[in-house]
């Protein structure tokens, strides 16, 4: 009896530390209070984003009817779709190349290079891209969306790469040996055995990449040409003028999309025990 009591007392429990509840609550409030306020005021009927005047959906209607918002949304979606697609394909290839080869020299360097966007400050990349693309624009006179797509693809790669690589590392390698043993060449083995099991990882990677692209401000702000505002850069532009709860409404919509995608990734991961 005494023994079990003393072991219980000795067991370290973070829940039992002094101030745990207060600190945890404070963190949650700091994290989520602003978002709650944002969402609440998106339903404000007045024009102030800080003074409550009663409930209305007028700002959602206003955003819906605002053609600038529509254009920005469209560009956001076009860029995010393309960037997440390309980034996922490249990330899948990179993940295969770093998990399905014999160990080679410089493997860790490659790993670091693929994850470069996670480590280099975004503003540095943004400035570098601005300068680099300026040179190309000068030479080719091309001013389309490709610059945005390209830069979004680049910084989305690590976000797609990490879940795909994790999935590949968790897979049973003997299945691929069995495929090779049964006359499947490398491509057939990838198509018929690796890929069907890799899908959850690929989907998770693609959705992460999509959300990251949708959300980007810094690089987009530097790279975009006039008229190429995405939703976040459009909102940033609006802040310089008088702000209305329309911004809250757009933000809430963005939040909802991100949350749905995140939930999807979570459910996918849980279903496949990963």
């Amino acid at each position, binding site marked *: 009896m005494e023994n079990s009591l003393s072991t219980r007392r000795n067991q370290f429990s973070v829940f039992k530390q002094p101030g745990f509840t207060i600190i945890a609550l404070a963190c949650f409030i700091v994290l989520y209070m602003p978002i709650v306020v944002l969402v609440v005021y998106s339903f404000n009927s007045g024009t102030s984003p800080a003074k409550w005047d009663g409930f209305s959906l007028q700002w959602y209607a206003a955003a819906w009817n605002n053609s600038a918002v529509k254009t920005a949304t469209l560009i956001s979606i076009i860029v995010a779709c393309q960037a997440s697609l390309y980034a996922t394909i490249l990330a899948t290839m990179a993940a295969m190349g770093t998990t399905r080869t014999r160990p080679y020299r410089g493997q860790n360097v490659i790993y670091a290079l693929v994850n470069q966007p996670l480590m280099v400050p975004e503003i540095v990349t943004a400035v570098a891209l601005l300068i680099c693309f300026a040179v190309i624009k000068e030479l080719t006179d091309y001013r389309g969306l490709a610059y945005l797509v390209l830069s979004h693809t680049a910084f989305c790669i690590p976000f797609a790469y990490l879940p795909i690589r994790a999935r590949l590392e968790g897979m*049973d390698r*003997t*299945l691929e*040996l*069995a*495929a*090779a*043993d*049964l*006359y*499947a*060449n490398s491509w*057939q*083995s990838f198509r*018929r*055995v690796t890929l*069907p*099991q890799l899908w959850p990882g690929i989907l998770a990677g693609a959705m992460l990449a999509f959300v990251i692209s949708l959300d980007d401000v810094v690089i987009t702000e530097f790279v975009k040409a006039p008229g190429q505002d995405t939703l976040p850069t459009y909102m940033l532009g609006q802040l310089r003028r008088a702000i209305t709860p329309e911004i809250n409404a757009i933000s809430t919509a963005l939040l909802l999309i991100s949350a749905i995608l995140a939930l999807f990734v979570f459910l996918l991961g849980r279903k496949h025990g990963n």
Partner: protein
Amino acid sequence: MSDSVSVAIHGVSKVFGHDRNAVTALDDVSLDIREGEFFTLLGPSGCGKTTLLRLIAGFEHPTRGHIDLHGEEISHLPPYRRPVNTVFQSYALFPHMTVAENIGFGLEMQGKSKEETTSTVGEMLRLVQMEDLADRRTDQISGGQQQRVALARALAPRPRVLLLDEPLSALDYKLRKGMQIELKRLQNETGITFIFVTHDQEEALTMSDRLAVMSQGKVLQVGAPREIYAHPAVRFVADFIGDTNFLDAELLEIERDRTELKLPSGKPVSARGAARSVDGKVHIAVRPEQTTLTRDADAAHLEGHIDNVVYSGTDTHYHITLPGGESFVVRTQNRGDSGDEWQAGQTAGIVIEPGAVQILAD
């Protein structure tokens, strides 16, 4: 079974890692495996059995030496170009395919037509008695059934050689016995060369046409089970397979294929084969069941003190200490009329049956 060679392994070595981390998994292994035979690689954990199979399958490449299949060198071929299939220890069934899809996979990859694939899959399902479960997912069948699917999947493309890496080790005792018989039946029916890996000596003896005993990357002896059991060439083989008594004897005389020896007791005994010895000493092995106890001092080859009598149903084991301190086990079969004739503490004579003395090379 014919005498033509199916798989020929010529001086194959396999070293993993480099320099200080180098591990020699196989050390100059040479073997001829005959067409249509049930060949077993037997040896303790880590002796290189799996490595040898992986080299034949093509998952690894030899550091030295080469492997021929029906007279053609295959060392440079990737696994998917070798007419060799593997039954993996973990089965490695494709989890996203049904039983039938698993079995048909190899045929499909070989580019066989739909009709041919379907009919061969049906035939294989019948062969392993799994027709009812063709559309099940592979995680919805039992371990024994998964085992059969793995077998059928590897047999379906009609390989020249089937490699089996401890395929029965995950099954419980009863299922295992059943599968041993089934494997033999499949091998007889298909006529395919089976190369079977196990570390279970009993399994190796009962199933194989021939077996190779391996230790630390080397093949120590190759032969039929009877040959290996009755005439182990080296101490390791004698010790690894069955129970054995080891003794030192003195060389008296070598005739062409007979050797006369003097036992520690001073009694002479003769053994098959010619012994080689530099200092006149020879190591010999004697199986416990090829010895009996006697009270007749003239007939006895050895004499010793019984320490322990162990009754095990069919047999009785007598643990004896010889005057020189060596321990010796005598095993006799229990018959209806045999009482407890010998007790611990008694002194007994040991008779070695003719032909029971085996000269070891080391």
